[in-house]
Structures are given as structure tokens and as C-alpha cells.
């Protein structure tokens, strides 16, 4: 058996794959958080709940309506995005002029309510979501066995992240978004409907969380707590990448997933801790984050 640093290469690659999968979800979620924070200046504590909502909507569509995975890939982000836009219109838009603490408290409360509702009806035990038959099975890569669905998750998340990055950096809508992140009043004075832009942005962030949720459903169990388990790490990712930095969120998401995977191989006891150790070091050395601009 081939060994690297005394570790079988299969074990190493296996953990790296797990790391890459986790990193894919970190990247998609922290991307949405970064976009929302950049423009709305709201730390969206409901992001984990929106991710869980995505997974649950997918699960309920399958169980009650027989709607399968592929249509759910479209329907779930749409539903969570529309839900997000409704929340922004009805509540968040009233908080922008107040202390940022209000936005944080509101989204935190909303997360508790959403999770509480699902816990009331579905308990805390996970519900399985079968891997769609199209993506079932695996591929032997020669050096390791790759479950097809996990390969799909990595590819899908890369496509989503690059697509979102292109949308923000290369399109006209994206230039509105970047400009409004710097100076919303002036952009609105130029005649851009900034309140609508804020609604769409929160909807986009929510849709990304929902999409991550339905992608995660066959990998993890669909459970009301799946979001709160993940969200703390995702916040660490955003802090390490630099609050509001889009590229930082994506790159840091994958990097930290891999760092976790590697730690699991070499020093398993620290694998849950490594992200926060990195966060502490980054905060000490570069308080604005790896990709953040100094304010």
C-alpha cells in the first residue's frame, strides 16, 4: 500500500474528498453570507436555517408530492429565494436605518423560529434523502473510489460559486451591486432602484443557501438542526476570508474544508477545532481577513 508521511494514500485522499465536500457547502453558504453582508450590512444569522429549509423543502417535495431531485434543484432555490425576498420586504427593510444589532437579532430570532417549527413537526432525528438514481454508484479512479454524487456536489458547487462570482464581477447588475455596497445613496441618486436591489440580493443569498441545502440532502441527513451545526463554521469562514469579500468567501470555504480533512488524517482530535484556530491566527495577523480590504 502506498504511504505518505506514514498514512495510507487512500485514507488521505478519502479525507481530502470529505474535506472538499464540506468545503463545497462552506463556500456556497459563506458566499451568500458575504453578498448579503456586503450590501445589506446585515449579519444573516438565519443563513443556516435557510439552508435547512432548502433541504426540508426538497425532502417534503419528494415525500408528499413525489417531486424528485432534479426538479427540486430548480424549485428549492426558487422557493427559498422568494421566502427570503418576502422576509426582506416585510421585515429587514425596516431595520436598515437602525443599529446593525437589530438585523442580527432579527435574523437570529427568525432562525430559532424556523428551526423550532421544523423540530416541532419532525423531531430532531434525521430523515434520509436517497441519492438520485442518476447519480448513484461510484467511479473507480484507480487510486480511490469516488461516489458519483459526491463528485457531482463538488462540480455543482464550483459552477455555482464561479457563476455567482461572474454575475457580481462581470455584469451590469453586478456593478450596481458593487457600487451600492460602497455608497448606496449615491447609486440611488443616479436613478438605480437600490431598495429593489437589496431585496434581490437577500433573495439571491437565500436561494444559494437553499440550493446548498438540497445538494446536501443526500449527503447528510435532513434534520432541523443541520443548519445550526454548520453555520458557526461558515461564520468563521467569512471572518477568515474577510467580511464581504466574495472571492475570499469562496476560496476560504474550500481551503478550510480541505484543512479540516487533512487534520482528520494527521490529528483527528483537532479536526473540529482547526477552523477556529485558523480564525484566531488570521484575526491576530490580518484583522480584515485574508481577502478583506482594510476599512
Amino acid at each position, binding site marked *: 500500500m502506498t504511504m505518505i508521511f506514514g498514512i495510507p494514500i487512500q485514507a488521505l485522499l478519502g479525507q481530502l474528498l470529505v474535506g472538499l465536500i464540506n468545503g463545497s457547502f462552506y463556500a456556497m453558504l459563506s458566499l451568500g453570507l458575504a453578498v448579503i453582508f456586503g450590501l445589506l450590512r446585515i449579519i444573516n444569522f438565519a443563513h443556516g436555517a435557510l439552508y435547512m429549509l432548502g433541504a426540508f423543502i426538497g425532502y417534503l417535495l419528494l415525500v408528499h408530492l413525489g417531486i424528485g431531485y432534479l426538479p427540486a434543484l430548480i424549485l428549492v432555490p426558487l422557493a427559498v429565494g422568494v421566502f427570503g425576498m418576502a422576509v426582506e420586504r416585510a421585515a429587514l427593510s425596516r431595520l436598515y436605518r437602525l443599529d446593525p444589532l437589530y438585523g442580527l437579532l432579527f435574523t437570529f430570532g427568525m432562525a430559532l423560529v424556523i428551526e423550532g417549527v421544523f423540530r416541532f413537526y419532525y423531531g430532531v432525528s434525521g430523515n434520509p434523502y436517497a441519492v438520485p438514481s442518476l447519480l448513484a454508484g461510484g467511479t473507480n479512479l484507480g487510486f480511490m473510489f469516488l461516489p458519483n454524487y459526491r463528485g457531482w456536489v463538488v462540480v455543482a458547487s464550483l459552477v455555482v460559486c464561479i457563476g455567482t462570482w461572474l454575475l457580481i464581477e462581470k455584469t451590469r447588475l453586478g456593478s450596481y451591486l458593487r457600487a451600492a*455596497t460602497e455608497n448606496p445613496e449615491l447609486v440611488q*441618486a*443616479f*436613478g438605480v432602484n437600490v431598495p429593489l436591489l437589496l431585496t434581490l440580493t437577500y433573495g439571491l443569498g437565500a436561494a444559494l443557501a437553499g440550493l446548498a441545502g438540497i445538494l446536501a440532502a443526500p449527503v447528510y441527513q435532513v434534520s432541523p438542526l443541520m443548519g445550526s451545526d454548520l453555520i458557526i463554521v461558515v461564520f468563521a469562514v467569512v471572518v477568515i476570508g474577510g467580511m464581504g469579500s466574495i472571492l475570499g468567501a469562496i476560496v476560504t470555504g474550500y481551503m478550510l474544508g480541505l484543512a479540516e480533512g487533512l487534520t482528520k488524517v494527521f490529528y483527528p482530535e483537532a479536526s473540529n477545532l482547526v477552523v477556529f484556530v485558523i480564525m484566531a491566527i488570521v484575526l491576530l495577523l490580518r484583522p480584515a481577513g485574508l481577502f478583506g480590504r482594510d476599512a
Partner: protein
Amino acid sequence: MSEPLLAVRDLHAWYGEGHALHGVNLDVYRGETVTLLGRNGVGKTTTLRAIMGLVRKREGSVFFNGSDLIGLPLHRVAHQGLGFVPEERGIFATLSVDENLVLPPVVAEGGMSVEEIFDLFPNLKERRNSPGTRLSGGEQQMLAIARILRTGVQMLLLDEPTEGLAPVIVQRIGELLATLKKRGMTILLVEQNFRFAARIADRFYLMEHGKVLEGFPVAELAAHTETLHEVLGV
């Protein structure tokens, strides 16, 4: 004369509890260049910002083309044909020169094309792909004006376009404003540089304590030297 393009009536504005404008009245007619004069802190910038709707707490009337802008949401004001060039220029660091230039939506026909703008500002063309804030102060001011020219607005609100710029750049901005005037642009200008303002303005309003003290045409400038000395200290 016909109806003014912009008619401000009894305009009050507040920053928090501070009452900044105490009933401003002024008129700007189509094709005119009008300059607001006054010491620092008398409310010149606030007047422009209150006309645009950037000061939220305001009362009174701002008639533009006959309709009152006071009730409109901020993003509807530009679409009435009013363009704003802020004192701090408002060039976006995360946008390239090109992106900065095409950021403000076109609100009416008759604006300049990007090609025309680049003919007028060859420096901007050379640096079209660099981030907006990498430009020099003068180039940033040119860009701040240029991007509004694309939108087809009928009137410009210009806040201290020469502030902090070298004399040769100030002269170029003067030439630019003269060109715009020839093309029929209406301009309301706030300017500390009195000699600059005297060269390009048709009329002046003198402001003090959040009010317009008096207005006079450029021809009566000599007759007002004493008042100006007193109020402005120039």
C-alpha cells in the same frame, strides 16, 4: 422669461436635530449656469443634496419641469432629468473606469455616447480598465462629470468641482463647463473658487445661515463687490 426649469420654494432641511436650511428660494432657467456662493457651512452643499433628495428630512417644494420632486423616492429623481456630481466625487473603487462611466442609468435621450465622452476625455480612455480610484483627483472629477453626461439629464448639480485641484486642471474643468453650456446644459454650481465661478456663471445666489440672501446676474457683480467682501471675505 418663461417658467424656470428648477424652482426651489421655502426649502427646509435637517440633519438629525440640526436645522440646516431655513427656507431656501431660488430659480434656475433652462440653459443657465447659476452659482451658489457663501462661506463654509451656510448650507450650499445641503441645498444641492436637499434638491436631489439625499437629505431625507426636508420640507418645502422643489419644482423641476413643473412637477414637485419632494414626494418622489430618491431613485425616481434622476429619471426626471436631474444629475448630481457630489463634492467627494463618488468614484467607486471596486469598479473600473469603464464601469464607473456606465453606472448611472440613461434616463433620457440626448446624452453623450461613450465614444463622444472618450473624445472629450482621452485620459479616461487610456485608463478605462483601471480601478476608478486609481485615477488622479482631476481625472476622478472628469469621470464624475462625464458619467452624468451619458445619462441625458437636462440639469447638473455640481458640488465644488475644482476643490483641491491644480490650476491647469481647474482651467480644463472651466472649459468643460463652457462646452456643456454651449450644448444647452443647465447647471447649478456650488463653488468656493470665486474667480472660477465668475468666469462661467450667468447668475449668482449669495447664501448665509441656511438662506438665500440675494441673487444677482454676472453683470451686477461689480456693484456687489462690497457685499461679497463682507459676506465671503474675498
